[in-house]
C-alpha cells in the first residue's frame, strides 16, 4: 500500500510506469503538477491499461580484469632489525592490477628529493632561492627536503666527475656515511654520470653503506653494469637499471642484471624521463607499455619504475624569463608538477623531484588517488557554477 507522496516520488524518478491492478483510494484527488514533472501518466493509465514497453536498458557493471603477471615489491632502506640503520623503510611496486581502483595496489608511489654533494649555482632562480642556504651541506639539504615532505632522498655524487672536482670514491663514501648517520630516511645514491668513475665510486659507497638497502643509481649500458650489480649484491643494495627510451633495451639490461645474480626484488627500472615539451610523450608511452607488458606476464619488465622528473627543469619553459609565457616563478614549479603527474598516471613508482610546491601538489594527488584520504574540505560540486 503506497500513499500519495510515495507515488509522486516514484513517478518523479521514472520515465513511464506501467500500473496494473491499481485502484486509487482517495476522497478527493487533487494533484499539483510541479513543473519538473513533465509527464505524469496516472490519470491516463490508472485503469488496467498497458503502456508501451520500454526498450531494455543495458546495465553497467564494473568488470574485473584478469592480470597474469604482477610487479615485484622492492624495499628501499633497512631497519636495525634488518641489518641497516633506517628508522623506516619505503616499499614500492607489488601491484597486481593496472589501476589502483582494481584493488591491486599495496604501495603508493613515492617522492624523492634530489640532493647534491656540492652547491648547484646553475639551478634556475626559483630553485636557488629555496636551496642555496643549505646546498653547502648535503645533510642540511636532506633535512630540509624531508621537512618538505620527501619520502626518501637521492644524493647525487656529482663532484666525483673528473671534469668537476674529481672527488675520490673514499671522500664520496664519507659524504654518504655522514648522511646515513644524520638522517633516518632511506636513500638513493646517484653517481656523476661519468661511466669510468661511477662504478669505482659505487663500490666504495656501497661498502660503507652495507646492509642499508640503498638504491644505486644507476647501472646502464655506458658503464660496467656488471660491476654495479656485483657491488649491490655483495653489500645488499638495490640497483636502478637505466636505459634511454627503449623498451627492448630496458628488457635486456634488466635481464643481464638478473643474470648477474641480482635478486628479482632488488631492481628498479628507469626508462628515462624526457621533459614536458621535450619528448615526454615517449616516456609516457614507454612507462604505460612497461606496466602493461609486466602485468601480462613479461618477467623482465616486472619491476617498479623510477622517473627523474627533475629533467623538467631542463626545459626552457620552466626557467626562462619570457614575459609571454607568464611569471617564471610560478611557471617553473607547475612545469615540474605537470611533468610529474604525467609519469605518475602512466605508472611511475618513484618520482625524483626538486621543487617543494610541485612535491606538495603531487603528494596531494597521490594520497587522493592511491590512499583515498578524506578531503580536508568538503565541497559541493554543483557550486562550481557560483565560484
Amino acid at each position: 500500500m503506497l500513499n500519495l507522496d510515495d507515488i509522486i516520488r516514484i513517478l518523479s524518478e521514472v520515465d513511464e510506469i506501467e500500473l496494473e491492478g491499481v485502484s486509487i483510494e482517495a476522497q478527493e484527488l487533487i494533484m499539483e503538477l510541479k513543473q519538473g514533472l513533465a509527464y505524469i501518466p496516472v490519470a491516463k493509465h490508472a485503469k488496467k491499461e498497458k503502456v508501451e514497453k520500454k526498450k531494455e536498458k543495458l546495465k553497467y557493471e564494473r568488470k574485473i580484469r584478469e592480470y597474469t603477471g604482477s610487479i615485484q615489491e622492492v624495499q628501499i632502506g633497512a631497519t636495525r632489525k634488518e641489518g641497516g640503520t633506517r628508522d623506516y623503510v619505503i616499499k614500492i611496486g607489488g601491484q597486481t592490477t593496472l589501476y589502483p581502483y582494481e584493488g591491486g595496489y599495496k604501495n603508493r608511489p613515492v617522492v624523492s628529493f634530489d640532493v647534491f654533494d656540492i652547491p648547484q649555482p646553475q639551478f634556475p632562480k626559483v630553485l636557488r632561492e629555496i636551496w642555496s642556504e643549505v646546498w653547502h651541506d648535503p645533510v642540511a639539504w636532506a633535512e630540509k627536503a624531508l621537512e618538505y615532505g620527501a619520502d626518501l632522498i637521492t644524493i647525487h655524487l656529482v663532484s666525483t666527475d673528473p671534469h668537476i672536482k674529481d672527488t675520490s670514491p673514499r671522500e664520496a663514501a664519507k659524504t654518504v656515511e655522514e648522511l646515513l648517520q644524520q638522517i633516518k630516511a632511506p636513500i638513493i645514491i646517484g653517481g656523476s654520470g661519468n661511466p669510468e668513475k661511477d662504478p669505482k665510486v659505487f663500490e666504495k659507497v656501497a661498502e660503507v653503506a652495507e646492509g642499508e638497502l640503498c638504491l644505486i643509481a644507476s647501472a646502464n649500458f655506458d658503464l660496467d653494469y656488471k660491476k654495479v650489480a656485483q657491488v649491490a649484491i655483495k653489500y645488499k643494495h638495490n640497483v636502478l637499471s637505466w636505459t634511454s627510451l627503449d623498451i627492448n633495451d630496458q628488457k635486456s639490461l634488466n635481464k643481464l642484471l638478473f643474470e648477474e645474480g641480482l635478486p628479482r626484488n632488488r631492481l628498479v627500472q628507469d626508462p628515462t624521463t624526457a621533459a614536458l615539451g621535450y619528448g615526454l610523450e615517449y616516456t609516457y608511452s614507454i612507462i604505460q607499455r612497461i606496466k602493461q607488458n609486466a602485468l601480462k606476464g613479461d618477467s623482465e619488465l616486472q619491476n617498479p619504475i623510477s622517473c627523474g622528473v627533475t629533467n623538467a627543469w631542463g626545459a626552457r619553459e620552466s626557467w626562462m624569463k619570457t614575459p609571454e609565457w607568464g611569471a617564471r616563478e610560478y611557471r617553473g614549479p607547475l612545469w615540474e608538477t605537470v611533468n610529474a603527474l604525467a609519469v605518475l598516471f602512466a605508472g611511475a613508482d618513484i618520482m625524483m623531484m626538486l621543487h617543494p610546491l610541485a612535491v606538495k601538489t603531487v603528494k596531494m594527488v597521490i594520497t587522493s588517488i592511491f590512499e583515498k584520504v578524506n578531503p580536508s574540505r568538503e565541497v559541493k560540486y554543483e557550486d562550481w557554477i557560483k565560484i
Partner: protein
Amino acid sequence: MARISPLEVYKLLPGINCKKCGADTCMAFASQLIERKKKVEDCTVLFEEDKYKEKREKLIELLTPPIKEVVIGDGLKVGGEEVLYRHELTFFNPTALFIDISDDMSDEEIEERVRRINKFKIERVGQELKLDGIAIRCKTNDEVRFGEVVLKVVENSKMPIALCSFNPEIIEVGLGIAINRRPLIYAATRNNWKKFAELAKNYNCPLVVYEEDIEKMSDLVQDIEEYGVSDIILDFGTYPQGEPLARAIENMISARRAAIEDGFKPLGKPILGNATVAWLVESDPIKASHLESSLAASLMLNYADIIFMHTLETWAILPLLTLRQNIYTDPRVPIQVEPGLYAIGKPNESSPVLVTTNFALTYYTVASDVEAGKVDAYILVLDTEGLAVEPALAGAKFTASLVKEHLEKFKVDEKVNHKTIIIPGMAARLSGEIEDITGWRVLVGPIDSSRIPKFIEEKWKKNGKA
C-alpha cells in the same frame, strides 16, 4: 576490443579498384580508412549505387569509433577516440579547454576576458597552441542578465560556447540567443533531465549529463538517448582532492574502458572534466591557478575530452597546452619540418650556414635562438626522419653523406660565396668525415643552440669566412 582489420573493411567496399577515392586499390583505401586518413564518403561509388546501401551502412557502423565524436559550435570535435593508450594507435581529438565567464562579472570585465581568450596563442614547435571555447555560467540566477552576457560573448567571440546552469529556463534563454552557434548545454542531472533533453532535442545541441554514480550515469544516458538526444557528454563531477577526486577519475577510466574494451555503448561518450573546482578550496589566485592547472592535467591524463577552467594566467595554461601537444602527438609520426634551406632574418651570400635536423622541436629551437640573437643566417635542415640531433646521430640518421646530399640538393653553394658550414656541437665527431666527402669546411658549433649568437659573434665574424 581488437581494432578492425583492413580485410574486414575491404569486404564492405565495392572491390573494383576504380581509384576514385584517390587510393590505388580498394585494399589501400581500406587501410587509409582505418588510419582515419580518409572518410567513407571518399568512396563515391558506395554512395552512387543503391546496391551498396547495405555495405555502406555496415561500413559506417564498423568504422564508428567506440567513443562517439561530438561536435560543438561549428566544428570543434571532441571524443571520437578508438584506443585507451596512445601507443596502440594515436589519440585523435585533443582535449578542448573552455575558459569560464560568469554573468556576475561587469561588462568591461567580460569584454576584456573574452578578448584575452580569443587571442590567447603560444607558438611551440611550429604549432599554435590555443584555447578552444568559453563556458558561460549563470551565477546570478537571473535570466535577463544571463541573456545579456550570452549576447555579449556571442558578439565578441567566434569561439564555441557552453551555457552552464542547472536551471533549464535559464539555459533556454541562452539558447534563444546563441542558437546558431550550436552551444554545449550544461547540464542535465537525474532530477532535471527531461527538460534538458527537450532543449537539446529542440535546439539540436550537444548535452552534458552530470551524474557521479557510474551505474546511474549509464541508465540516465540511455533514458536521454531514448528521448531523442544523440550528442551526449559525460560529467562525473570533479573534486579538488581526496576520495571524491579518486572516485571521479575512477569513473572516467571505467567508462572509457567499458566503451573501448567491452564495447559498452552507453558510456562511449566524450568526457568532461571540470578543473574550476580548485577555486572552491583556494581563494588566493596564484595557489588556485596552480591547483587548477594540476587538476586539469590529471583530468587530461585520464580521458577528459573537454575541460572547464577559470584561470587565464599564461604560466598556468602553457604547461597544460604543452602536455596536450605531447600526449596528442601521433606516435606514428614525430612532428617534423620539411627538409630544406631556410632563411632566418635577411641572410646574404656571406651569411653563416647552420646545419640541423628536421625534428620540429630541434628546428624551432634553433630557429628561435638564431632569431632572438638577431643573426641573419641560413639553416640547412636535414631529413633525419624527424629525429633530434642526438637520437639521429645515435641511430645513424645524421651522417656525413646525408649532409653532402642536402648541400647538393638545396644548392647551398649558389646561395653563399663561402664554403663553410656550422654543425651542432653534438655532431662534432662527424666533422672530419663531412669535410672529407663534401669539400666544405666544418665549424663545430656549441652544444646548445642558445649559444649560437655568441658563437657567431666570436668565431664566425672573426674567422668564419673562407
